């Protein structure tokens, strides 16, 4: 068990280094276009570009640049943001917090909802409840986030006028402004998690050991809670951990749409403005969060599954 955690952690570090290398090669070298042109624009002349390159240390050997860059990262110096005219860290951290808040509320509602509905529909496979939840899930995952944002806005903002149309939180934190972004995220992801849970539950319910439990004369409640859920919830746990990775994608659209000052909108702005330093930092953070949750999911799965834990 200890070896497993050590191995996974080691792989996590390995991944981060490879990712940093990829990002460095893509964004800081000439491989995909001159960074100077990217930053200064096509209409800059060679002198300006040369000057910029000198200033930012682009004429040094590549390996040296990489090591310095990585070193900076590790110590927290994430560079200067061109778009926001300030240290990247100062810009990024409050945005991360905002996205964390949005994510927290999204998950707080979405996870119990999808788990419960998934378990209920898996318990009674083929029933009306099962079919309707399945169809509803398919429907909701077929509507892209920007489309559901449009539809919900049309309904709740323009027609019913219950909720505000943007979530810029310019007057301080207002919960009402969080509702629509969270709603879009919840509606989109709920279908997927519920379906995974349902599949896992249905598979468990048709297994032979559940038949054994029933034929032992155990009360139905015990069969479900003690025997079935213990096995059925292992896979959904992993799925839920991996949804954090998905969230980092989903918030980009939602934050952009509702002008919510979150991490996702930041990544988008960085790329649209060719703000290299900001983009790199955001990408590294995003990957770091994703890889951490993946590692935790892996370890958790091993822990929850006695077959692997004690082999």
């Amino acid at each position: 068990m200890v070896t497993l955690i050590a191995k996974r952690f080691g792989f996590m570090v390995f991944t981060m280094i490879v990712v940093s290398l990829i990002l460095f090669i893509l964004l800081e070298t000439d491989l995909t276009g001159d960074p100077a042109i990217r930053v200064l624009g096509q209409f800059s002349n060679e002198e300006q570009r040369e000057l910029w390159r000198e200033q930012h240390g682009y004429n040094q050997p590549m390996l040296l640049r990489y090591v310095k860059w990585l070193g900076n990262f590790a110590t927290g110096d994430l560079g200067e943001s061109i778009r926001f005219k300030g240290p990247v860290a100062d810009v990024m951290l409050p945005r991360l917090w905002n996205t964390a808040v949005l994510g927290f509320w999204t998950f707080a509602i979405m996870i119990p909802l999808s788990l419960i509905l998934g378990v209920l529909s898996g318990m009674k496979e083929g029933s009306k409840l099962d079919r309707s939840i399945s169809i509803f899930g398919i429907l909701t995952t077929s509507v892209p986030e920007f489309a559901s944002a449009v539809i919900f806005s049309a309904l709740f903002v323009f027609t019913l006028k219950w909720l505000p149309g943007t979530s810029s939180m310019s007057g301080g934190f207002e919960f009402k402004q969080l509702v629509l972004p969270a709603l879009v995220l919840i509606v989109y992801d709920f279908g997927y998690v519920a379906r995974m849970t349902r599949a896992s539950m249905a598979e468990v319910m048709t297994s032979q050991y559940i038949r054994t439990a029933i034929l032992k004369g155990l009360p139905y409640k015990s069969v479900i809670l003690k025997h079935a859920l213990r096995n059925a919830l292992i896979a959904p746990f992993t799925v839920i951990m991996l949804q954090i990775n998905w969230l980092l994608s989903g918030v980009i659209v939602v934050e952009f749409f509702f002008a919510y000052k979150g991490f996702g909108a930041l990544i988008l702005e960085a790329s649209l403005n060719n703000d290299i330093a900001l983009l790199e930092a955001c990408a590294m953070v995003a990957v770091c969060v994703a890889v951490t949750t993946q590692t935790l999911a892996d370890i958790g799965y091993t822990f929850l599954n006695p077959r692997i834990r004690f082999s």
Partner: protein
Amino acid sequence: MNTDQEPILVCKDLCISYYTRAGEIPAVVDFSLTVLPGETIGIVGESGCGKSTVAMAIMQHMGANGGIKSGSITFKGRDLTQLTDDELRDIRGSEVAMIYQEPFASLNPSLKISTQLMEVPLAHEDISTEEARKRALQMLADVKLPDPERIMEAYPHQLSGGQQQRVVIAMGLLSNPSLLLLDEPTTALDVTVEAGIVKLVADISKKYGTSQIYISHNLGLILETCDRVFVMYSGEVVEEGTIDSLFTWPRHPYTHGLFACIPLPTADKHAAPLKPIRGQLPLPFERPQGCYYHPRCDHFEEGLCDVDHFKMEHVENSAPDHRVRCLRYKDINIGHQTGEGEQKEVLELGDRVLNVDKMKKYYEVRDNSLKALISGKRIRYVKANEELNFTAHEGETVAIVGESGCGKSTFAKVLMGLEKSTEGEVRHLGKDISGIAVRDRSPEEVASLQMVFQNPFDTLNPSHSIGGQISRVIKKFGVETDKTKVFNRVMQLLDIVKLPRDFYFRKPRQLSGGQKQRIGIARAFAGNPSMVIADEPVSALDVSVAAAVTELLMDIQREHKTTLLFISHDLSVVRYLSDRIVVMYLGHILERGTTEQIFAPPYQPYTEALLSAVPIADPEVTKREIVLEGNLPSAMNPPKGCPFCTRCHRKIGEICDNEPPPEQIVADRHVIKCHIPLEELKQVEHVIHVPSESERLHARANRDA
């Protein structure tokens, strides 16, 4: 067994159907059964006869689309079909319990054994957790599991198959049920493990007075465990009676046919070939008019057997509960079990074809745990094959016998070129092939050494047509290249395996298990091989189908003078068709010799135990009982000395643990690996005693008197 008491279970005129989108499927048509207290009833039949459906009906758990159409099931006077869910829950586990076919799948992988055991009495009786725990521990000891404390704390995957099944049995007995249902409880287990479970089951009824219903397809097992037996065919009972009456003189043609499919201990392939039952089991909606068996019956009489469906009749001049469903049983003189049938010619042995010389196959396993890192032993070896020595001649049938983990599959892989040997030689037709992988062999070499695989459902690629697959083989072996010639050869092969020519166009899923296996045989013989390895070719097939496929294999081998290496764990089939036998255990060959030599003393102790474990469906044959205790060691950590020392019932002392046993030569090509001196081994009695004709007549006369 107390015949004065009220019966525990009465099934009367039971009729069970499944209701699917395609319509009603009548799985069971007419089933009646009475179980008295302390009795063990056997239900025997092939797949599709409805025996498992009956078991599920008794437990009232037929699934969403199954239902009892008519008839009744009365348990201790109460009609099970009328009970509410709560009442059923009361009965399940405490009065009626069930043991399943696959023990590992039947246990919850995420709960400890202690939880799963204790919840049975806790749910049904008003006892404390302490009391439940004590009972569970006691029960584990009763089912002869060593170290019950450790097992309580274990998870199912940490136990072996035999241990898991004992746990399931313990779980069933914990609340002292009156009736125990066992649905093929040993099918998934090794033969020697099976023997232990069978003995346990037999002891249960004696010790607890539990009635049992034992469902199986194996007549030998039924003989060893049951008092009365019911034979099912296509959804109904065709014959019922006590073990004595039914096994000595079966009256229904199907029962007789079943016995004729099973190799007898007296028979061998030349003297009394197996007589397969022709035709196929009818599907539930294709059942013929009148007697369901009549299309396959040799005693069919038109106008009588195909008119009306009829009921069971009491057999005259036989025990009071011997009944049969046949209108002509009085006229048919099937006779007692004798070995009749055509004699087949004995094949002369040719030159030596295969020579295995000190072959070893070790698999490397990388151990990445911290412990291994520290101790420096990162690479460990699974010793799959350890110094194998034997030979085979042209036209010979050599059987390789052993249980799971003995290394027979590994040996087959090395021969076929899927693996390379670690050391030693394997010479086929003079050439050493142990180091040559398949892709480096010439097409002729590949064609001359082919294999028939075990699982008929996987042996053919489901996505391609039959004709396509066989043609590919022919082309690959370079037998023919011209399109028409290839086609003709495919047709030829289909004829040889006795399948209709239009199977060329069919896909595997349109074929039955037996038909698929025939195609597997056709494929193996497509290139006129000099040697064929058959890896448990009939283990997954029903008895009657297995008999037909076995006979087919024999016929083809006889005609082509092919050497056959027959891998199996079933000693009765092996005795029937092999000339020589090689007994393997944990990668070692413990004994090898001709069939007669193996089945007679001197025995290697493992051979002895193996012979004693084989179920034999002849009530007049007696066996010495040997039950092995202890566990199969892991192949990564085999014992320093004799591999069998952990379970050997004749272990003489420390020498068995520490020193590898020597090869003792008993006769030409008969070798035993054991520390026990040969003279002692020669003194051992026969394990299986087959009475001679005069003894049989004597015994029968005594009984009838």
